[in-house]
């Protein structure tokens, strides 16, 4: 089960069982975006309040597997309070960690090396790389966050 241990690390199971920032926010003022994983039917809603280009609040709602829910929970911790720009960098870093080329990353910005310093708790999700089918589970909340950030900025 060594592969599995990588996939289901303590930290993931903890965030799965005790998801942070769960719930909904009133829209408006919040924006909300919904993501589906057509593979398995998982859904995630990301509620976001952005003020002065800062992610003031974020809540996660929806159903999903341990990977997508813990990823969402970890994500909410990672971006809450950050500037929109920093949040976007975090998204890119996370995707790099899962070895997904970010197609829209055309600004030539270099992304820091991936380690516990740069990504913090998110490193727990690195084991997902070995399970390509589950990468979509892990990235679903992040793609939805990208959309939510766009909606929030477009307002």
């Amino acid at each position, binding site marked *: *089960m060594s*592969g*599995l241990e990588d*996939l*289901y690390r303590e930290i993931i*199971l903890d965030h799965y069982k005790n998801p942070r920032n769960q719930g909904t926010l009133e829209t408006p003022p919040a924006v909300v975006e919904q993501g589906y994983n057509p*593979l*398995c*039917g*998982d*859904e995630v809603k990301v509620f976001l309040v952005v003020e002065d280009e800062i992610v003031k609040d974020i809540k996660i709602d929806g*159903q*999903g*597997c*341990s*990977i997508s*829910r813990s990823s969402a929970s970890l994500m909410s911790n990672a971006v809450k309070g950050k500037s929109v720009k920093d949040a976007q960098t975090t998204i890119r870093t996370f995707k790099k960690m899962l070895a997904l080329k970010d197609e829209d990353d055309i600004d030539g910005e270099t992304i820091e090396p991936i380690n516990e310093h740069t990504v913090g708790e998110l490193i727990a999700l690195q084991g997902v790389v070995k*399970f390509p089918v*589950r990468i979509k*589970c892990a990235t679903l909340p992040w793609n939805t966050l990208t959309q939510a950030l766009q909606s929030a900025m477009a307002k």
Partner: protein
Amino acid sequence: MANELMVDNILDQGVLDAQAIKNDFPIFKEVKQDPFVYLDSAASSQRPYSVIKSMDDYYRQTHANVHRGVYRIAEQATNLYENARCHLGKFLGAPHPELEIVFTKNATEAFNLFAQGYGRKFLSPRDVVLITKMEHHANIVPWMILKEQIGFELRFLDFDDDGQLILDDIEEKLKGVKILGVTMASNVLGTINPVKELTQMAHSVGAVVIADGAQYSPHFTTNVKDLGVDAYCTTAHKMLGPTGIGALWAKRSILQEMYPFLGGGEMIQNVTTEGFTTNDIPHKFEAGTPPIAEAVGLDAALTYLEGVSLTAIRAHELSLLTYAMDLMEERFGSRIKVFGPRDPKKRSGVISFELEGVHPHDVSQILDQEGVCVRAGHHCAKPLMTSLNVPATARASFYLYNTEEDVEALVAALERTEDFFK
């Protein structure tokens, strides 16, 4: 390829010897994974040697394009292809097997063909198409696409807690209905629907019926004439056949009335710069080079199934299903919820379930680690998932090559899954 088809001695008092059958399927020896407990035949079945060999032989000895060649191997290829058509027609109990089977690439194309060929011709904005909430997307989305094109009402039949269609208000539901689409057996709940009775009711209001046999014909004797339906879809890869081929059966009169669907070679009688005229049925619906080797493989698959007998297959699956449901109940009690009919006799060999506190995706992942292959997801039946109020289920499904040991491996792996997430 020694033990090509050893179906003669596999019947043991009407129940088949699944272990012997397993020997006919190379994957159980050659897959690079041990153990390998394959419980996902509802998604796609495995193939016996005889099916693989039939396609090899075809490519090695006979291949040529069909229908348009005068030379011998082209004629042989054409015969093989047309024989496969006839065979499938007979397998389904079609009155005119050589005219009424249209080969498609899968069951999904067959539904699209019917929706665009028949639906588009006969539906108008005020009509109703009635389907059920347990349909596979293949019998939902083609209607939605057509609805966007011409407009009509798409109505749904509900089902109850036991996974049975609710027919109390069927008369009301049938009002204005021109087409009824219903699955023979649900790929999630296992429910076997009363399609014969539904067809009688639908006919009494002048509607035509298309049945989804994708999960039925691999496991039960099919007779479209007896069912009375007007059209029927099936797919080869779920019945020991190759990928790349499925079929629409429809009554001759229906096929004759239908619009052509895909345009191209072979489906025409004549083409000028002004327009085209269509070929006779069934060729009218088969545009371009058809799946020839795949038809040959399907033919061999049907022969294999007939050799074992659908009756024996059903009996075997029923016994596995009962064993599995009992064992799951015994080990997990209320911690496992099995969806669909409680009575195994009312269902086909699929078990969709929910293990308390563990997402189906995670169930499937841990099971895989134990060598047990089950599917997790919405099984292309999202409205059904919504009705069940779950995002997804895990699903184990049985076929002729599964054994009681497979069931036991499943249950043992589920126990380990529970432990893992405790």
